């Protein structure tokens, strides 16, 4: 733990992202999102499966402490995991159980009875309801992340910039509100979310170094998939549709020329 602040300092020195001097004092407009490249960009882009798996790990071990991902079911994870892996992940989740033989849904301490999850179950939210979420987060509501990439101007680059936009010195005269954190990529500059990622927040199974940038890039890849899981299918069908329409247009153009040849 002692090494962490030092590591963060070292990171600040190395990463030439935004220097304090570049941050305008007037943060009525947040900084534009950083320029990032993604595996899923462009007409042939796909979700890098390794980044997706690492991103899932970051979501599960870090983000899911506060943020739900309600629209994703465990069977969706077969996108980048084997069915056995998805089943194991589902089984490790505690899902509210049906009433037991006595018709009870709570145990003798009043806790909700649970059962191991199955593939058809959705991810379980960290808090029972909005009030519980707010009570645990200083009054702020951590948004569900299922659509976060599509629900923000700037998309993946914006979410990445938020995640990596902490640890910057606020410009002179900028007041960071009580219980909030400075992040110049967030509208107003005051964000309720504490810096979520640190170097080594997760230990990647594939040996990738877990820098803040790496973690952010991975989890944003995963969340982009969560927001648009049919993107690869869409681009695949799109290619066929484009080729088909080009051919049809070409043939129609030739027919058009042929039909009109004698009319001019």
């Amino acid at each position, binding site marked *: 733990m002692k090494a962490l602040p030092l590591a963060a300092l070292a990171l600040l020195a190395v990463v030439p992202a935004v220097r304090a001097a570049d941050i305008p004092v007037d943060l009525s407009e947040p900084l534009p999102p950083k320029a990032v490249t993604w595996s899923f960009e462009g*007409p042939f882009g796909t979700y890098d499966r390794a980044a997706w798996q690492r991103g899932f790990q970051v979501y599960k071990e870090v983000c899911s402490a506060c943020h739900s991902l309600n*629209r994703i079911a465990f069977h*969706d994870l077969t996108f980048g995991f084997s069915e056995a892996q998805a089943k194991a992940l589902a089984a490790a989740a505690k899902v509210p159980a049906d009433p037991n033989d006595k018709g009870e849904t709570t145990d003798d301490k009043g806790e909700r009875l649970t059962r191991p999850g199955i593939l058809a179950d959705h991810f379980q939210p960290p808090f029972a309801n909005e009030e519980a979420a707010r009570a645990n987060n200083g009054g702020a509501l951590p*948004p569900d992340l*299922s*659509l976060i990439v*599509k*629900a*923000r*101007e700037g*998309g993946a680059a914006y979410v990445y910039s938020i995640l990596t936009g902490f640890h910057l010195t606020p410009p002179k005269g900028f007041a960071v509100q009580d219980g909030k954190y400075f992040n110049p990529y967030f*509208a107003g500059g005051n964000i309720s979310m504490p810096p979520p990622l640190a170097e080594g927040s997760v230990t990647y199974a594939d040996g990738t170094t877990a820098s803040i940038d790496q973690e952010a890039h991975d989890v944003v890849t995963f969340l982009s998939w969560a*927001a648009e*899981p*049919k993107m690869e*299918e*869409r*681009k695949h*069908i*799109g*290619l066929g*549709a*484009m080729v088909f*329409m*080009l051919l*049809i*247009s070409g043939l*129609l*153009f030739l*027919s*058009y020329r042929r*039909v*009109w040849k004698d*009319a001019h």
Partner: protein
Amino acid sequence: MSGPSTYVPKSGFARWMDSRLPLARFAHDTMLTFPTPRNLNIWYAFGAILTTMLMIQIVTGIVLAMHYVANADMAFDSVENIMRVINYGWLMRYLHANGASFFFIAVYVHMFRGLYYGSYKTPREVLWILGVILYLLMMATAFFGYVLPWGQMSFWGATVITNFFSALDQITPHWGSAVATWLWGGYAVGDPTLNRFFSLHYLLPFVIAGVVGLHVWALHVPGNNNPLGIDVKGPQDTVPFHPYYTVKDAFYVALFILIYLGFVFYAPNFFGNPDNYTPANPVVTPPDIVPEWYLLPYYAMLRSVPQKLLGVLVMAGSLITLVFVPWLDTSKVRSSRFRPMMKQFFWIFVVDCLILGYCGSQSADAMLLSTSIPLVWVARIGTLFYFAFFWLIMPLLGLIETPKPLPASIAQPVLSPAE
């Protein structure tokens, strides 16, 4: 519909049918032999493009309605279910959402084409007015449709637009609010509003299809206008609709669909607002409530007037103005090709509409680019020009402008066909 029918039934059944319900004769006369000016250019393909878009919207819409749930608690989730679970649901929804934008792109080209070539002038006034009605129906349908996903922009857009009616309070106190309450089916936009908007969103496309039938009927009585704006003098000026325009329209329809599908498959959220991927929340107002792009010029006009009732009247007036265009234009010449002044004012008008659209897309207190000129003043000048174009420039130009000489006929233009 125009001219004597040339249909000859070829079989016994066709003869039998022809003397009972002459559907084949109708199709033959309107879609095959219909004499069409031989000089129609690319801009005349947008009628066929619009028909295609209407069919795409109706088919995809019917499929979406099979899976959509018009309930304030379930609408957003049902749309996400369509996007994630239903087979090809994402395709249906992206086709439908982008289809609306491309429908409007086509209708704007179609309308500007009508303005440029004077297609509203006698004897096509009713054809033009039916077009204006179609445009208004399209805007209503699109507005209702935008509310259905029940995202933040759906909810707040519906709130802003239905609140226009509360401006009537300034004429008779409480009257406008009563109208708004009646429209909502409650004291705010809510579940009853969503249900009736869904009902109307399903109804109006079929009304549109019906008016399209009238529009085509009104087109087939005088026949097509054409880029020269002169009347057809005889058979040498026309070609049969089939195969000449079926193949030409089909080519341009295919090109249009190619571009449309490019957005559907590779930039499906280009025309959308990210805020609409956040479920509707009546207690959180988005920082900027922006309508869909095709309504932005009117939104700019509305906001350019500092008084609510007047603003609503200006916006409504800008649309109603279109009905009077056939009589506001006093020129004897239809096509702007032969109207040197009208041609220039037409393009200024196009730019004015684009500027108004830009003003409508920016926040209410925005400045012009990096200057300190409030954008609302640009919108005010733009609004003034919009009305001046129709109510001042159009009537005046017909009196002061000297048109270029018109060609004798479509088949033998006197002037070089260089233009």
